[in-house]
C-alpha cells in the first residue's frame, strides 16, 4: 500500500508543468539521438550529465527516464527506414523492418515497432514500480562479504554479457578499476597512484570518463567516416499517418502472449547486469521465432518478430533500473550514467533510497510509464512522416555541436581545465578500445563498481582478521560465488563453438 501511494505521488510530481515539460523534452532528445545512426540514448544522457548540476534531481531523473525509453524505441526508425539500427537493441527490428520497407510497408513496420515498444515499456515500468521495492528487502539481507561476491558476480556477468572476448572484457573492466583506484584509498587516508602529481590526489571524476567514453570516442569514430554518405532506399514520402496504425487482425495474429512473453523476457534480461537491450531483443526474437506458427516469415518482414524484439528491449528499461536502484549495480550503459546522476546529487542507491527518498525516484518511474504509454504513440503519429528526414541532418553541424557540448560539459562539472583535459584523454583511450572491439561499457562499470568491490573485500577480510574463508562461510556470499562459477563455466568454459542458424542469419 505504501509503495502504491509512493508511485501515485510520483505521477502527481510528474504532472507538475516544469517536470512534465522536462519529460517531453527528454523524450524528444532521446528520439532524436536514437534515430540518428551513431548517436545513442546513453550519449544523450552523458551529454546531459554536466547540466544536471544546475537541474533539480527529480527533473534530471525524469528527463533520463524519458530519454532512455525514447532511445530504445526510436532506434527502430532508422532500422526500418535505412537499414541502420539506431541502437544495437534494434538489430532484430532492422532485419524485419527493412524487409517490410523494401516492400513499401515501412509505415506498417514502424507502427508495429511502436506498439511493441509501448506494450513492453508499460509492462516493464509497472514491474519496476512494484518489484524494485520488494528487491530492496532482499538487498537488506546481504551482508558485507555477500556484497563483495555480488559485485564480483555482476562484473563477471557484465563481461560475459558483452559477448566479446572474455580477455578483452576483463582488461576493460580492470582498466576501469585501475582508474578508480587513483586518489585517496577507500579505507585509509593514503593517496595512491598519483605518480607525483598533486592534482591526482583528489582522484578521477566520473564525468570525464563518461563523456570521454561515450561522446568523444564517438566523435572520433564519426570523424573516420566523413566520406561515407547516408544512403536512403525507398521513398519516405510514401509514409502516411493512417498507415502507422496496426490493424486488429494483425495484432490478433501476433497474439497478446507474444507481447507479454517479450516483455517478461526483456525485463528479466534487464535485471541481469550488463546484458542490455540488444540481448533482450535477441533472446525474445529467437524465442518468438522458435514458437512461431510461421517461422519462414522471419527474415522476410515478420511483424511478429518486430513485436517480440521491440517489446523486449523497451521492457528492459524497467528491468535495468532494478539492480541499479537496489544494489547500485547498473543493468546497462544508460543506467550506469543515470547512476552517475544519482551520485552527483548525493543519492546512494539501496534500501535507504527507497525508505527515505522514494519521492525523488518515483517520478522517474512515472516518466518511464508515461513515455511508453503516451509519448511513443503520440510521437509516431505526429512526427512519423518526418522521421526519415532526421537521418539526412548534416553530420558536420551535428557533431560539431556535440563536440562543444561534450568538451564544455567536461569543464562545467568542476570548472577545471584538468578534468576537461581528462575528457579528451579518456575519449582517445575509449576510441582505441572500441576500434579493437574492447567493451568500453565494462571499463565504465569497472570504474563505478571497483571502489565498492575493494571496500567490501577489505571490510569482509577485516571481519575475520584477514581470513578469506569468510567469503565461503557466509551463506549470501557463497550463493553469489557459486552463481559466478556456474556462469563462468557455462558461458566461458563451455561456450558454444559453432554458430546457430539464427546467429548465422542475423550476423550477431
Amino acid at each position: 500500500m505504501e509503495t502504491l501511494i509512493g508511485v501515485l505521488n510520483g505521477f502527481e510530481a510528474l504532472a507538475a508543468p516544469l517536470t512534465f515539460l522536462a519529460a517531453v523534452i527528454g523524450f524528444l532528445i532521446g528520439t532524436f539521438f536514437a534515430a540518428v545512426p551513431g548517436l545513442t540514448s546513453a550519449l544523450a544522457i552523458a551529454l546531459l550529465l554536466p547540466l544536471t548540476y544546475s537541474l533539480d534531481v527529480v527533473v534530471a531523473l525524469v528527463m533520463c527516464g524519458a530519454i532512455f525509453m525514447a532511445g530504445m524505441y526510436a532506434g527502430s526508425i532508422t532500422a526500418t527506414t535505412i537499414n541502420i539500427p539506431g541502437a544495437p537493441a534494434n538489430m532484430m527490428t532492422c532485419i524485419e523492418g527493412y524487409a517490410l520497407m523494401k516492400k513499401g510497408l515501412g509505415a506498417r513496420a514502424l507502427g508495429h515497432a511502436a506498439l511493441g515498444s509501448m506494450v513492453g515499456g508499460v509492462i516493464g515500468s509497472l514491474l519496476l514500480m512494484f518489484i524494485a521495492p520488494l528487491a530492496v528487502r532482499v538487498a537488506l539481507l546481504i551482508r558485507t562479504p555477500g556484497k563483495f561476491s555480488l559485485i564480483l558476480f555482476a562484473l563477471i556477468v557484465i563481461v560475459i554479457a558483452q559477448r566479446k572476448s572474455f580477455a578483452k572484457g576483463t582488461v576493460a573492466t580492470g582498466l576501469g578499476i585501475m582508474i578508480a583506484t587513483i586518489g585517496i584509498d577507500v579505507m585509509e587516508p593514503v593517496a595512491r597512484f598519483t605518480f607525483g602529481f598533486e592534482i591526482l590526489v583528489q582522484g578521477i571524476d566520473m564525468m570525464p570518463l563518461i563523456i570521454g567514453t561515450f561522446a568523444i570516442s564517438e566523435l572520433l569514430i564519426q570523424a573516420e567516416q566523413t566520406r561515407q554518405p547516408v544512403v536512403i532506399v525507398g521513398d519516405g514520402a510514401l509514409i502516411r499517418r493512417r498507415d502507422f496504425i496496426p490493424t486488429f487482425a494483425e495484432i490478433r495474429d501476433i497474439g497478446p502472449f507474444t507481447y507479454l512473453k517479450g516483455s517478461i523476457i526483456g525485463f528479466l534480461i534487464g535485471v541481469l547486469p550488463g546484458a542490455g537491450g540488444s540481448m533482450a531483443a535477441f533472446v525474445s526474437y529467437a524465442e518468438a521465432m522458435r514458437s512461431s506458427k510461421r517461422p519462414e516469415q522471419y527474415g522476410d518482414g515478420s511483424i511478429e518478430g518486430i513485436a517480440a524484439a521491440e517489446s523486449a528491449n523497451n521492457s528492459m528499461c524497467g528491468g535495468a533500473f532494478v539492480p541499479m536502484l537496489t544494489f547500485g549495480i547498473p543493468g546497462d550503459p544508460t543506467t550506469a550514467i543515470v547512476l552517475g546522476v544519482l551520485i552527483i546529487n548525493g543519492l546512494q542507491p539501496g534500501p535507504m533510497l527507497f525508505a527515505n527518498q522514494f519521492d525523488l525516484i518515483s517520478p522517474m518511474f512515472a516518466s518511464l510509464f508515461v513515455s511508453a504509454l503516451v509519448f511513443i504513440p503520440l510521437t509516431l503519429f505526429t512526427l512519423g512522416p518526418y522521421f526519415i528526414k532526421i537521418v539526412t541532418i548534416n553530420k558536420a553541424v551535428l557533431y560539431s555541436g556535440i563536440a562543444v557540448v561534450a568538451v564544455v560539459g567536461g569543464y562545467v562539472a568542476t570548472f577545471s581545465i584538468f578534468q576537461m583535459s581528462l575528457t579528451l584523454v579518456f575519449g582517445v583511450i575509449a576510441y582505441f578500445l572500441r576500434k579493437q572491439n574492447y567493451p568500453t561499457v565494462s571499463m565504465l562499470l569497472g570504474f563505478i563498481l571497483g571502489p565498492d568491490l575493494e571496500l567490501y573485500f577489505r571490510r569482509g577480510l577485516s571481519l575475520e582478521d584477514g581470513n578469506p574463508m569468510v567469503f565461503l562461510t557466509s551463506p549470501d556470499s557463497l550463493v553469489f560465488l557459486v552463481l559466478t562459477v556456474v556462469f563462468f563455466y557455462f558461458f566461458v568454459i563451455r561456450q558454444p563453438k559453432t554458430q546457430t542458424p539464427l546467429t548465422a542469419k542475423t550476423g550477431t
Partner: protein
Amino acid sequence: MSAKQNSRLCGAVILPAALMVITVIYLIDALRKVRPLEEGTAGPAFFPIVISIVMIVALLSLVWNGWRKIGPPEKEGNAVEAVALAEPIKVVFLTAGYIAVFKPAGYFLSTAAYVLALLLVFRFKARNVFVNIFWAVIIAGVCFVLFSQIFQIRLPTLGWII
C-alpha cells in the same frame, strides 16, 4: 589475408602491449609504496596488486593470440589505417588546442574557432568559407544559450566583451 586485416591485427597486438606497459608501471607503484599485507588484513596496495596481476594475465593472452594471427606486413594495409586515423588525429589536436585556449581566449572566441575547424574536418561546405563561419557562430551561440542562459553556468570570457 587482406591488407586491412593485417593492419587490424597489428593494432590487436599494439594496444594490449601498450596497456601492459601501463599495468606494469601501476603494479610497480603498488609494490613500491605500500606493503600488500599488513597485520593479516589487506592494505591499500593489496587489491591493486590483484587487479594488475589479473590484467597482466588477460593482456598476455591477448598479445599471444594477436601475435599468432599476424602475417607478413603489407604497405597497403598501413596506408589504409593511416587514412582512417588522419581525421580522428585532427580532431584530437583541435580539441587539445581548444582546451588549451578555452580559459585565456574565452568561451565564444575559442568555441567559434573550434567549431569552424571541426566543420572543415567533417567537410561541411568546404568551398564557401563564409557559410562555415556563419554556422560556427550559430553553433557556438546556441551552446552558449544552452549553458549560460538556460542552465546558468558561468563560462570563461575574454575581458568584458565575449
